Structures are given as structure tokens and as C-alpha cells.
């Protein structure tokens, strides 16, 4: 059995299921409420498919008002709510409980306002990350955070998890690009925070909300900062015959004072799977770095030359730049599809720890040793420039005991990240996956303060309450909350 526990469902809520569904159906249209057990099954998990539990019902509202109305019903009836975007979380952020109602925002997909003069766009949060940039294409602007799942993942999910991505080395993660939002509170009340202007007085509540994993409210609209597209950009592929040397190269590039827009790392296991999908012609060696530089042609050439100087000291087996736009597209397509493509090799657990860049070589070495100890193959593909690692542990889901072994291995890797001065998560969030490891990184007091903040926004602990905090730590809060 998988090792992450979920609390027993509230039998009182289950007993009132039909009334809950009836009241939800009264406030949104009937086709927006899904409660047939055959149908709720499709919502029983996200991309962490090892953990599954069908919810009591799924609501798919069409606008903020309907989200608010559904939330009010759940609040009045004391029903836990699981907010859901595109369900691409690798940390189980959208995993339901049997006594919960999933509120999905995927039907809120309008682009509300594009203002290039003031450099912002206002969207409903069910739009996908990539479609925001696609809408801006003609105007020469783009939205910077680019999680690898950007084709499918929603802006709501990005805000909940404070998502990053390959190009965040230069442009920052979601919180650095989020200017305002409209949010439905746990009570159903709708609030607006921030807006298109930079800075505002008082506490930075926006900063608290971004990355709160759906525990403080459901964001239905967002104002995002947009940037003019660079004049040009070109990826460089640098191949090394050892993982540690590649890790060392990353540290040296950063130390040299250069700031490429992205430094990505893929090892041979991963390259094998990815090239079968993207045909990008990556070098065949132990580890490859994709370093992207951007700017005018002169700037691009200057940076490539500087990076060549840094890399050559480490004797790369290959150093080449993309020859044309199609090749650049293929190189990035491969990198962005890496997690999915790994499915060609088998089942996997995808981790998300962060370490100081200078510790990359030693951490990669230690992961290799652990892989031997556990007898499970591991592939590494990650945002090397900011030390955000994504080891993928390969296992066979149909073989008894392998998932548990993979999970134990994963926990060891995450502990290692904390031990070397890093942290448990870079961008996927804590979800359920890293929930029980939070005590490794935070003291009981640290966790208590975070839970007190949640209580301010959500006194009844209805929103995604079985995530992020170890169940034992959150029990007093969850118990105190009165259920209808």
C-alpha cells in the first residue's frame, strides 16, 4: 500500500451527500454538477496517479459568481472543497477526499483584457499558461513563467503552486509576475487584491496567496505582468561524460556573472525517452545542459562565446548551438515533454527538491549512490540554473512493493536536499507528496504560524485541508473546525 495516509472521510457528510448535490445543482446548472460514481472517478487523481479517491461531487462553474455560489453552499454545509485546475499536479495537489467537493475552474477561459502599453493582461484563471502567451503573440509580448506542463496547466494552478519553469532563472517565478487577482474566499465572498499598478501600501497579501496551494481561496481571475519578447534567443547544447561535471559547469556559468535565460539539465536515461518523442538530436552522453541565451544577435554571440570559454575548461564531449528555429523548437519540445516522455520507460515518481547551485555536483553523486542502494533507476531532468532538481524514480506500478520502495527513495532524496541547505519543493508544491516531510524543513512553531495564517482565511479548514501540513500537526485545526 502507498505510504501517504489520508484521513477517514466524515461519515456525517457522506450521509448528507444527496442534499449537498441537490443544493449545488440549485446554484449552478445541473450539467455543471457531476455526482455519478462512474463519472467522478475521472476526477479521483491528478498527475500523481498513485493516489486516488473519487470525490463526493465535482462542480464545473462557468464564472466567478458560480464558483462563489458553490463555495457558499459548501461553506454552509461544512463540506471540504478541493480546488482543481487542469489536474496536472505531480504532488497530489488536487487529490480529493471521499467527503469533498471538487470545484474545477477549467471552464473559466476568457482573456479579459490585454494592455501592452501598461504591460499587463487580465485573464480568467482556467486559461492554460501557454494560451496566455499565444494570445499575446501578435503584439510581440509574452508571459514569462513557463512550467513544463504549460500546454495544459492553468493559471489558477500556477498561482496555487507558485509555478516556475525553465525560463524563470531570468524572469522569476509566478509570484514575481502576478500583479493582482480576484478570489473566492472560503465563505464564498469575492475579493479583489492588487491590480495592474506596481506596489501598494500595507501587507503583501498577494505574496501570501501565491503558492498557498488552494488552501486560502479559489482564484478566478488574475492580472499578470507581460514582457516584450526578446529580439532573438538560441539554445546551446553542452554534453558531458559525467553528471557531476555537468553540475559543476552550471555552477561555473552562474559564478561567471552571466545570466542565461535558462540552464536545463537532462541525463542519458531521460534523453533516451525524450528523443524518441521529439527527435531533437540531443548529444549522446551521460548528461546534457541546454543553456538558452537571448538578446540581439551581437548579445547572443557574445554570451555563447563566454559560455564556451567556461564550458571548455571542463572538457565537454560536445558543444553546439541550435542552427535554426525548427531545431530550437525541437530542443525545447523535448525538454518540456520530458516528464510525459518518461512514461515510455515505465512508471515513475517525479520529485521536486531544490539545492544551492554549488551543491549540484555532490547532490547528483549522492542520488546516484542511493539509486544503487534502492535498486531503482533514476533519471534526472531539471532546472539546473536555480538548483531546482527533478529526479524521476522509475518503478513498476504493477509490481507489489515497488511504489513503496520508490517513495522511500524519494523521501531520502528530499531529505538530502534539505540537508545540503536546499528545500523540499521548487515549484510543484507540497501537496500530499511532501506533506509528511515538512517537519524536516520546518519546526513545530514554523508550521503553527503557517496554520494560523490559514485559519485567518479559512477558519473552518474547508479548503484543501489535508494537504501541505502533516496530518498530525493539522489535526487540532481540522478537528476544531465545526462541520455542518
Amino acid at each position, binding site marked *: 500500500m502507498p505510504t501517504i495516509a489520508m484521513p477517514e472521510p466524515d461519515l456525517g457528510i457522506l450521509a448528507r451527500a444527496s442534499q449537498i448535490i441537490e443544493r449545488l445543482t440549485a446554484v449552478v446548472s445541473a450539467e455543471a454538477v*457531476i455526482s*455519478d460514481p*462512474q*463519472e467522478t*472517478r*475521472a*476526477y479521483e*487523481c*491528478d*498527475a500523481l*496517479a*498513485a493516489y486516488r479517491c473519487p470525490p463526493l461531487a465535482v462542480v*464545473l462553474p462557468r464564472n466567478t459568481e458560480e464558483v462563489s455560489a458553490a463555495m457558499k453552499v459548501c461553506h454552509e454545509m461544512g463540506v471540504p472543497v478541493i480546488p482543481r485546475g*487542469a*489536474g*496536472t499536479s505531480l504532488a497530489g495537489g488536487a487529490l480529493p477526499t471521499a467527503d469533498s467537493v471538487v470545484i*474545477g475552474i*477549467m*471552464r473559466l*477561459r476568457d482573456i479579459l483584457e490585454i494592455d501592452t502599453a501598461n504591460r499587463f493582461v487580465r485573464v480568467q484563471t*482556467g486559461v*492554460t499558461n*501557454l494560451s496566455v502567451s499565444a494570445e499575446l503573440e501578435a503584439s510581440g509580448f509574452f508571459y514569462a513563467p513557463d512550467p513544463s*506542463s504549460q*500546454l*495544459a*496547466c492553468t493559471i489558477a494552478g500556477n498561482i496555487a503552486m507558485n509555478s516556475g519553469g525553465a525560463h524563470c532563472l531570468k524572469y522569476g517565478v509566478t509570484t514575481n509576475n502576478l500583479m493582482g487577482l480576484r478570489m473566492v474566499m472560503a465563505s464564498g465572498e469575492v475579493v479583489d487584491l492588487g491590480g495592474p499598478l506596481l506596489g501598494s501600501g500595507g501587507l503583501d497579501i498577494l505574496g501570501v496567496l501565491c503558492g498557498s496551494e488552494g488552501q486560502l481561496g479559489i482564484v478566478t481571475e488574475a492580472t499578470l505582468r507581460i514582457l516584450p519578447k526578446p529580439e532573438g534567443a538560441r539554445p546551446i547544447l553542452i554534453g558531458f561524460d559525467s553528471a557531476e561535471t555537468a553540475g559543476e559547469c552550471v555552477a561555473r556559468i552562474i559564478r561567471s556573472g552571466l545570466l542565461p535565460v535558462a540552464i536545463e539539465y537532462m541525463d542519458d536515461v531521460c534523453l533516451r525517452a*525524450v528523443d*524518441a*518523442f521529439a527527435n531533437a538530436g540531443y548529444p549522446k552522453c551521460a548528461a546534457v545542459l541546454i543553456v538558452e541565451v537571448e538578446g540581439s544577435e551581437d548579445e547572443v554571440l557574445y554570451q555563447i562565446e563566454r559560455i564556451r570559454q567556461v564550458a571548455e575548461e571542463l572538457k565537454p564531449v560536445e558543444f553546439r548551438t541550435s542552427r535554426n528555429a525548427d531545431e530550437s523548437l525541437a530542443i525545447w519540445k523535448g525538454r518540456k*515533454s*520530458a*516528464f*510525459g*516522455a*518518461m*512514461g*515510455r520507460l515505465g*512508471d*515513475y515518481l517525479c520529485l521536486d527538491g531544490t539545492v544551492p547551485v554549488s551543491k549540484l555536483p555532490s547532490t547528483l553523486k549522492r542520488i546516484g549512490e542511493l539509486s544503487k542502494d534502492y535498486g531503482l533507476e533514476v533519471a534526472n531532468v531539471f532546472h539546473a540554473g536555480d538548483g531546482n532538481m527533478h529526479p524521476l524514480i522509475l518503478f513498476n*506500478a*504493477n509490481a507489489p512493493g515497488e511504489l513503496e520502495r520508490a517513495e522511500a527513495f524519494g523521501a531520502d532524496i528530499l531529505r538530502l536536499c534539505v540537508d545540503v541547505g536546499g528545500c523540499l519543493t521548487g515549484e510543484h508544491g507540497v501537496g500530499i507528496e511532501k506533506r509528511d516531510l515538512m517537519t524536516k524543513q520546518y519546526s513545530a512553531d514554523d508550521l503553527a504560524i503557517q496554520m494560523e495564517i490559514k485559519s485567518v482565511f479559512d477558519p473552518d479548514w474547508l479548503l484543501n485541508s489535508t494537504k501541505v501540513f502533516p496530518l498530525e500537526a493539522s489535526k487540532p485545526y481540522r478537528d476544531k473546525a465545526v462541520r455542518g
Partner: protein
Amino acid sequence: MQTKFSEAQLADPATKRSNEILRSCVHCGFCTATCPTYKVLGDELDSPRGRIYLIKDMLENNRKPDEKTVMHIDRCLSCLSCMTTCPSGVHYMHLVDHARAYIERNYKRRWDERALRWLLSKILPYPDRFRFALLGAKLVRSFRKFVPDARLRAMLEMVPDRIPPASRNDRPQWFLAEGQRIKRVALLTGCAQRALNTDINDATIRLLRRHGCEVVIPEGIGCCGALTHHMGKTDDSHAMAAANIRAIVAELDGKGLDAVVINTSGCGTTVKDYAHMFRNDPLAANAGRVAALAKDISEMIADIGLRDASHAEPLRVAYHAACSLQHGQQIRSAPKDLLKAAGFQVVEPRDSHICCGSAGTYNLLQPAVSAELKTRKVATLEATQPQVISAGNIGCMMQIGSATGIPVVHTVELLDWATGGPMPQPLAEKPELSV
């Protein structure tokens, strides 16, 4: 992802294949982003990931299909956009085909639904019956607003104004190559296409002959089986496919063939999959031979190289990528490259990867979703301000043509014109476009 099939279940070849497919899915959700029905309906149950889940549950538990499961699987266009998107190579086509056959065997549809499907399967694949039905439908078409059933209304609305007489060219025969013969090819003349539009095969034959191909219309060739296959009627579809395999193999073992040319990309996807369809059948070897020879007309001409294409007006052509071509057969650039080489100015609509809603019999069985996709597709095509729209599949041509005033022609008609053939009929009717 994890699956729970027993050894006994896995002894069934279809279940074994579905298990392999399900095991390769990692539930990443990328497929949802490019699924047309998810874009329109916004419910994961109407996305590939949701359908995969429904199918998995149904097959694992040997469950009798329920109304909801059937509804969500019926809503799938089989456009296969998800297969282009899927990084882990999930073969959704084989999975959904299995599910459709399972539903057909284990689920009793309502009487009207059954009657409709029976009717479609007994008419569309047979050109003479279909032509007769079209003529009849044309007579009653003006009363369509009194028809209570949306599906029947959709059918009447699809009836074209002009129904061509049967073409002599579609009968079994062969056509000599012009000049030196470099290849001998069989042409799959199709079924519904032969009743709806005879210009396409005529243009294809002229184009192939001009490019040094001897063209054979084999005795006994008919519907490829796709129409019934997508309704889960595997007995019908296999019988039709088997007849084609025998007809083509007779020719192959006789005077020999270099290719089987197909100008309806929906059929091309199916013929190229014959090896899978017959993998557990005595016909397996021959099915494999036919599948290996199958080529879309654009692939064929690209292989030979377009000759002397200087005869057409350099019109602005919006190229509509048929899903069966771009996703089913992964042919993306050949038709556009050929059109450009023929001197046309080629433009592409936004979201070209999204289906127009035609999808075989889908526009007749799922009129609401189909109409929404049609509206979106026509809007993006018209936004490119083309003089003509070109596509490689009769279904798309009918669907798009029913909602726009811009002429819609098959890509081969433009290539035929450019290499010395007649101007395509829909263009000739627009005097402002002629020389």
C-alpha cells in the same frame, strides 16, 4: 499507470493490447489541452485522459457499459490530436477502437439510435445506395425544419446542392501513365466520396498519370471499413477491409503495385492500420503488405516530385489540415509544400491542430459539438482571407463548405490544375477568380 487485469483477461488479444496502452499513460494531462471536445465542453470526462479512465474502469471490471460512459466515448471525434500531443506515446486510437467495439457488443442503445447507426452503416459505405439516398434527401430537404430529431436535421443539411452522376472513372479498369511509366499504383476510390464528389478521383487520376503512374482501379475494391469501424461494428468493418485486402493483393501478385494511393485521409489512416486490425487473423501477412503500400496522394506526389507546375493562378490558399492526415498519418508539411511548389500562396488558420467537427459520421451523430467546432474552424479559416480553401479529406470539405461562401476544393484539384489540368469546378464558378 497501474492496471488491474487478471491473467484470464489478458489472454484476450484486444485486452492485452489495451493493457499495454494503459500502462504507457502517466496521466500527465497534456492531451486535455489539444482535445477539441474538452475545449468546447470543459469537462475532463470529455477529454482523452477522462475517456482513458472510463475505458480502463469498464475493461478492468468487465463492466456493462453505462449510459454516461457511452455518452463520453461517443463524443470522442477520433481526431487523434491527443496522439500527436502525448509525450509517452499512448496509442489512444487502438484503445478507443477497442472500447467502441466493446460498447457495440455489450450495450443496447435506444431504438432510434440503433436504427440511425444501422442505417448509416448500410448506406454510407455503398456509393450507389448513398447516391440514391442523397437524391431522396434532396427532395425532402426543404421540409427539414419540421424534422424533430437534430441528427436527422443535420443529415438533411449536409446534402449538397449538386449530386454528381456516377463517374465512369471509378469503375474497375486501368489508366496508362503519360510518358514513361515509373510506377504502377492502385487507387482506393472510396465510398461516400464517390457519391458526393467525383472531381476528386478524376483529378487524382490525371495528376498521377501526368507524374508517370499507371493507375489501377482494382476489381472488388470498396469502402476501407473506417465508417463502420468507428461505430464499433467490427464485423462489418473487417469484412470490408478483408475484401479490399484481397482485391489489392490480387493486383499485387498479378502485375505488381508500387503503392496504394488514397485521397481521403480518413481512409488512409484506417488502411495504414490494417496490419493491426488483422494481427490475429489468417489475413495478417497480406494486411501488412497492403498497409505498408498505403500512401496518401500528397505523400505519393512528394515522393515523385511535382512536375511543371506553372499553369494555375497564384491564388491565396488556406490549407485546412484534416485530422486524419495531420494526426492519424502524421503528414503535415507535404500538402503545404506541394501547394507552395505549385505557385500558390499558402496560409494556415490559427489552431490548425483542432478538428473541424466532421470526423466521419460524427457530424451526423453529434450535431451540437460538431456545429460548434465547424463555426470555430470556419471563423479561423475566413480570418486568413483566402481565395480558396483546400483540404485532403472529403468529410472536412463537406463540413467546411456547408458554412462558408469561399470555395473549398481538394488539394489534388489544385495540384492537378497547376500541372495542366482543368480549373477546379468551384473556382470556375467564381468568375472573379478566373483568368
